[in-house]
């Protein structure tokens, strides 16, 4: 069940729903009624994008409208009580409101419905406003505070009022403010910032893991390159076999940029074609594990798309689940599953994929040679047909000449999507080009040196390492050192094993509270005695003796997974409290003995998967995630610099470099200053872009907005978000040393654009043009401030902290760090029981600097 279907359930009777859905979606027949209701809701907004379905959209609009009005003051009172258990929420809502609203809405909303119908040309805008009201409803539900509720009620009534007025006149500033504010506070409306996943039958375990991995620092990025490389390698091998050269292959990442609407249906078909692409590659069939990796990547691509096109659709992860089921039969059927097991299954698949790819490359070293050659060629011969790849050596001179040619073509190419590029920009483009040429020259001159200097095999190994194909080992694998000491002869035997997660045993009764750091350290670094009936066979003593085995960690994985053993043995769950520190002191062997301030690493919490419910078989998983570092992870991608894998990629890269310099050009620098200033001021209203370099991230968001505004094109082009400037020097010399951003950010990265939305909203609603932007921006930031004043809490300090996303299937709610801390605390009535904790390692020194800005 999703939150958003609340409105639907309130209004429609279910038989009506069924007929409505069946006509357009065959899949619906297979779904349980509750799913149908939600999917109907999902169709609603996707349809609105599609003018072909005008009539139906109108129909659904009416429903939405009703849902807004349904919230009469009495209802709000009712809603206040729905705060106890979010898991049972939707059920309750359903029961209560199906009856209530059926009668109430008939009377109250007949007039409004008429209004809406009249207003058919304003569809898009209506959607946004209704959705925001929608969010407000959610707000009421989730927030326990009565005062808050009253506040909400005020908001709502005012907004409803404005809704009504809105038909006749322009939107008021107040409404706008509220909109902006709630778009930041609550994701999930039509301006959803984070794409959601729908529950496809007890799939909360799947969703929580997908959400978590999505927010795992650098995971998406590396996954992308893994899939990309795999694609490339397999394609190359296929080509070698067929001796055919069809290089102009579409990269998956680009498909998302067409601006198409992606309904669930579309995506299914798309993944179908992708699938066929993968399997059509001649000669090599991918194994199940590799398919899982690929599907996971596709899934993230789709989520990214959903975010870029502003859909509120929850994505249906069926194809991914299917691939998982192909690997492990235990996930078959719609049963509840252990999220930990699934996670291990996915990680296993990625590991196998990594190793298989490395193996393939080792077996086919010619790929690498071709690759390095072809990349340089591709670099040079963007416009020429790729047949000439076989001609491996090109003189620098010729490349140079081609470069110039390329520059020209680029210019002309870019002319079409970027209409308003002025001369100033093109000059910057020139400089960017020169940089590009230089760098490619550099890479070309480097390559032969490498190949001459190194032995062939070493070179391959080195390249594999450089390409990060073993990223799984670095990110997810640690080394456990188990030391066994015979107590008689005191000789020590050491054994090293790779580990992925650490299981933390829990005791049922609440013993005296330990310091969380010590709790985890003691749970992980353990000592075990072999004695009494369980003597140890010592080879030195030639017999059974007592021994101590101590477990320590020589290396801990960058992404550390702690598994709370809540289901030991039987089905009974240990639901006792366990601490969830946001910062975990590193306890690897290098850090263990050191004092806190000397420790080399620090672990930051980025996700928690909690289990709600009494037993293993009955329960629900919710993931709480937070983005620690989204904006930095695509910057200066070694991968992209060193290996320009595909012609498409190259295109994008140059493209982005160009637009980057354009966006950050002097012309806009003043505006940016303003924006930064405003932003900093307005940061109290839910800063989503908290990262190590907040300003850096911010600038990216702004650029998204600026570009959109400047270009005024609905096409969200590849330029969006691809480049982050060193905003530290944004005011002085931003274009001097442009940092490149890996284009994979545009393929499957998280596309958070809350701020953009606010700006865009203004832009849309008030029909302002590019010239007026500056002043409008001023108001927008001001109004943000106002909005925060409306809201008495959370306080400024809270909002300055990290933001957490509570990902409960298709519902994503934002929490401040403090709210999340409160939720995790021991004193809660309904205690959250964390099941899996996810930490990411950071260099302790960097962390200290960045943590407090």
């Amino acid at each position, binding site marked *: 069940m999703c939150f958003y279907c609340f409105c639907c359930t309130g209004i429609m009777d279910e038989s009506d729903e069924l007929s409505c859905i069946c006509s357009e979606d065959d899949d619906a027949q297979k779904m349980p009624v509750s799913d149908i209701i939600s999917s109907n809701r999902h169709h609603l907004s996707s349809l609105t994008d599609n003018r072909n379905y005008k009539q139906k959209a109108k129909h659904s609009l009416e429903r939405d409208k009703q849902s807004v009005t349904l919230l009469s003051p009495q209802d709000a009172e009712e809603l206040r009580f729905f705060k106890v258990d979010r898991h049972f929420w939707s059920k309750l809502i359903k029961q209560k409101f199906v009856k209530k609203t059926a009668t109430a809405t008939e009377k109250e909303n007949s007039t409004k419905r008429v209004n809406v119908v009249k207003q058919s040309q304003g569809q898009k805008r209506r959607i946004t406003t209704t959705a925001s009201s929608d969010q407000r409803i959610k707000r009421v539900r989730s927030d326990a505070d009565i005062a808050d509720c009253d506040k909400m009620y005020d908001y709502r009534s005012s907004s409803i009022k404005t809704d009504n007025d809105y038909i006749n006149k322009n939107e008021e500033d107040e409404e706008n403010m509220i909109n902006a504010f709630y778009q930041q506070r609550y994701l999930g409306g039509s301006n959803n910032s984070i794409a959601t996943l729908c529950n496809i039958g007890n799939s909360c375990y799947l969703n929580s893991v997908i959400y978590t991995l999505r927010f795992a620092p650098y995971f998406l990025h590396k996954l992308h390159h893994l899939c990309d490389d795999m694609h490339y390698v397999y394609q190359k091998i296929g080509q070698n076999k067929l001796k055919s050269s069809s290089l102009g292959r579409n990269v998956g990442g680009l498909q998302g940029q067409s601006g198409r609407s992606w309904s669930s249906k579309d995506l299914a078909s798309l993944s179908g074609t992708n699938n066929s692409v993968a399997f059509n590659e001649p000669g090599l069939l991918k194994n199940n594990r590799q398919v899982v990796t690929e599907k996971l990547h596709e899934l993230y691509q789709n989520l990214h798309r959903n975010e870029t096109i502003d859909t509120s659709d929850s994505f249906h992860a069926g194809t991914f689940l299917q691939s998982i089921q192909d690997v492990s039969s235990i996930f078959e059927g719609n049963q509840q599953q252990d999220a930990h097991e699934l996670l291990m299954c996915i990680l296993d698949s990625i590991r196998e994929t990594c190793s298989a790819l490395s193996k393939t490359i080792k077996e086919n070293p010619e790929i690498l040679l071709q690759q390095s050659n072809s990349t340089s060629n591709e670099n040079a011969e963007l416009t020429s047909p790729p047949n000439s790849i076989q001609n491996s050596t090109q003189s620098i001179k010729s490349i140079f000449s081609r470069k110039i040619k390329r520059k020209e073509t680029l210019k002309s190419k870019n002319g079409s999507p970027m209409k308003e590029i002025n001369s100033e920009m093109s000059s910057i483009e020139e400089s960017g080009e020169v940089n590009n040429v230089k760098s490619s020259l550099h890479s070309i001159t480097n390559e032969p040196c490498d190949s001459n200097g190194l032995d062939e095999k070493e070179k391959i190994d080195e390249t594999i390492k450089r390409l990060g194909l073993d990223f799984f080992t670095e990110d997810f694998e640690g080394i456990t050192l188990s030391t066994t000491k015979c*107590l008689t*002869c*005191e000789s020590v035997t050491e054994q090293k094993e790779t580990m992925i997660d650490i299981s933390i045993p829990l005791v049922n009764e609440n013993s005296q509270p330990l310091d969380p750091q010590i709790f985890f350290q003691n749970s992980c670094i353990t000592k075990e*005695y072999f*004695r*009494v009936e369980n003597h140890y066979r010592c080879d030195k*003593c*030639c*017999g*059974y003796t*007592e021994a*101590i085995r101590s477990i320590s960690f020589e290396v801990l994985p960058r992404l550390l997974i702690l598994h709370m053993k809540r289901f030991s043995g039987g089905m009974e769950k240990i639901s006792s409290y366990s601490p969830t520190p946001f910062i975990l002191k590193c306890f690897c062997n290098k850090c263990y003995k050191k004092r806190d301030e000397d420790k080399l690493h620090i672990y930051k919490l980025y996700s928690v998967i909690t289990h709600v419910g009494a037993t293993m078989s009955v329960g629900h998983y919710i993931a709480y995630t937070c983005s620690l570092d989204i904006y930095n992870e695509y910057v200066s991608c070694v991968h992209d610099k060193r290996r320009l894998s595909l012609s498409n990629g190259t295109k994008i890269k140059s493209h982005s470099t160009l637009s980057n310099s354009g966006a950050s050009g002097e012309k806009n620098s003043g505006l940016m200053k303003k924006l930064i200033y405003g932003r900093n001021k307005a940061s109290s209203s839910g800063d989503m872009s908290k990262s190590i370099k907040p300003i850096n991230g911010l600038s990216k968001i702004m650029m998204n907005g600026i570009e959109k505004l400047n270009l005024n094109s609905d096409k969200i082009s590849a330029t969006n978000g691809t480049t982050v400037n060193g905003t530290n020097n944004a005011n002085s010399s931003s274009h001097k040393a442009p940092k490149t951003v890996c284009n994979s950010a545009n393929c499957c990265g998280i596309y958070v654009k809350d701020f953009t939305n606010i700006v865009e909203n203004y832009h849309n609603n008030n029909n302002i043009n590019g010239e007026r932007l500056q002043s409008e921006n001023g108001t927008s930031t001001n109004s943000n401030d106002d909005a925060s004043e409306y809201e008495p809490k959370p306080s400024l300090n809270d909002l300055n902290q990290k933001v957490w996303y509570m990902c409960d299937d298709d519902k994503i709610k934002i929490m401040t760090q403090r709210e999340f801390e409160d939720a995790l605390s021991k004193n809660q009535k309904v205690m959250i029981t964390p099941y899996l904790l996810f930490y990411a390692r950071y260099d302790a020194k960097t962390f200290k600097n960045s943590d407090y800005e």
Partner: protein
Amino acid sequence: MLKNNPNTRKKMQVSFVVRDAEEKRHKRGVNSLQLDHNNGRLFSCGRDAIIRIWNTNQVNMDNSYIQSLEHHNDWVNDIVLCCGGRNLISASCDTTVKVWNAHKGFCMSTLRTHRDYVQALAYAKDREQVASAGLDKQIFLWDVNTLTALTASNNTVTTSSLTGSKHSIYGLAINNSGTIIASGSTEAVIRCWDPRTCNRLIKLKGHTENIKSLVISSDGSHILSGSSDGTIKLWSVGQQRCIQTIQVHTEGVWCLLVNETFTHVISGSRDKKVFMTEIRNPYNSVLVCEEKAPVLKMCYNIDYSGIWTTTWNSDIKMWKLPKADKISNQKNSSNLSLNEQQPVVPVNTNEEKLIKGGAAVEKYVVLNDKRFMVTRDTDQNVAIYDVLKAVKVESLGKIDFDEVVKSRNKMVYVPNWFTVDLKTGMPTIVLGQDEVDCFAAWVSATEAGLGVGQTENGSDPKVNYGSLLLQALLEYWPQPMVEIDNDIRGNEYFKVPKHTPILFSEVGGRTGCRLLVRDAAGDTESQLLHEAVPSWVADVVIDRNIPRFIKIPFFLLPHPLMVKQDRMKKDRLIANEFIQCRKVCEHVLDKILMENPAPTGVNSSQNNSDTSEGSQIPAEDKIELLCNEIVCDPSMDLRTVKHFIWKQSSDLTFYYKTKPNFS
């Protein structure tokens, strides 16, 4: 702790040691030493489960051996000499504490109170009290006079136990006057009790690892402790704190020796070094000697001018001690050496006296015939043992072990029926833990080289190794129920050495009964045996029942190349696993192929019975058996085929084929 619950009575196992009648040398490390200062007799106990007595007054130490005290069957961890040298008390990994008559050298009584390895003993001279402690975390206090007064009829003894230790105890000490007792354990805490009241006194925290060695000053005011963390600490009992830490060793300190006046400590460590250090001024420290292996125990020689040391090796050495005042004179030089990490030169480079130890068997491989075993000892000598006869049959000297194993292994498969344990440095053969395992090995007597002269009618009797060995081991056990006229003793093939110790013990647990083969006739031993011998042993030894044959199922199919595909039915046959392939050939010839040619059927079957007598062409010349497309040697038995050729757990399948010269 439920070991004695009658409902869950443990299975009993039988084992024996293959050894010489007299083992004059320690086989493995020597765990403890005691010197009788009245007469210079040195008692040493070792990992070979034997306590030996040496005369240290001998000029030639090669003749110093006096006697062995044998009754333990696992490592003897500690001994104390009490009652002015009349009695010896020993603690062992076999979980028992034994009281010995030290002069005559026999075991007076056995205390079975401990539930796990007994690790340490402590003796309060003034009160004639002995404390024992071990891995079961228990400390028991014994009154020596009561112990020595125990007889077969008066065999109850009361003991007071000191409880409170949460970890296995490795070190124990009591002062002479018996006013304080201290224990060291893996808890790294020293716990003290008052032995008179059994009340806990104090806990001393400070070490970070196991504490293996403790000494208490006579007045009970100070405790000296040596720990696996490499330090020696002096504790004040009154202040309940550590007042001195001595750090001269780089590895765990395993044994301590303190002079009469409690001014100097001699410490032996895992780092193989022995230091003598002034307790109050640790800079005054000299390296007494450097051993070749971790030092396990030390004791003063008869005139306190030197120390006897033992190590992991089986040698016992005496080293001269520097004079105590000489150590303080060396203050500056030792200070320097400690600070500048210069290699410390030991006072002694060579030992004064040496009691040579022997070599322990450290490696073995049981050959495929499951009868002979190749071993290698710590001196790299390779030897061959005949497990069945419980003797060493061949000494091969220092040659390549693996080479010997390779050359002696035959392509034959016999099931396992025993395991080997080398913990004591002498091969201990543990017979299979119940009848199935022990009686698994059926072999042809002639093949085993046992049936010489026995095959009067050309038949080849099958013998069971386990059964034969048990009969031989209990050869002297009087069998009261059996009448004298059919009193068959032992087995008809061989005898085992009479000195061979036999052990009956719980599986993986404590020993019930230990006796020598020749002693089984004695009254007490015979009585003990009747209690200890499990029924499955009595079955073969007394009732002389023949153990079950082990059957093996197999399929017999015509080979695809056979001209006559007469029988397509898949026959599942069952035969004793030691049946040779030629028997299968005969079966094929008799029962399968001769069915069809009806007219000659009678004759040929008669012919064939003739051939099996060996007069005409044997069946194996006419029939070829194939398994996994490999032709099986007719003398190979079924289990060998299954193990070496079939190599699957599923049922063995043979294909038969007539040989070309026989149609």
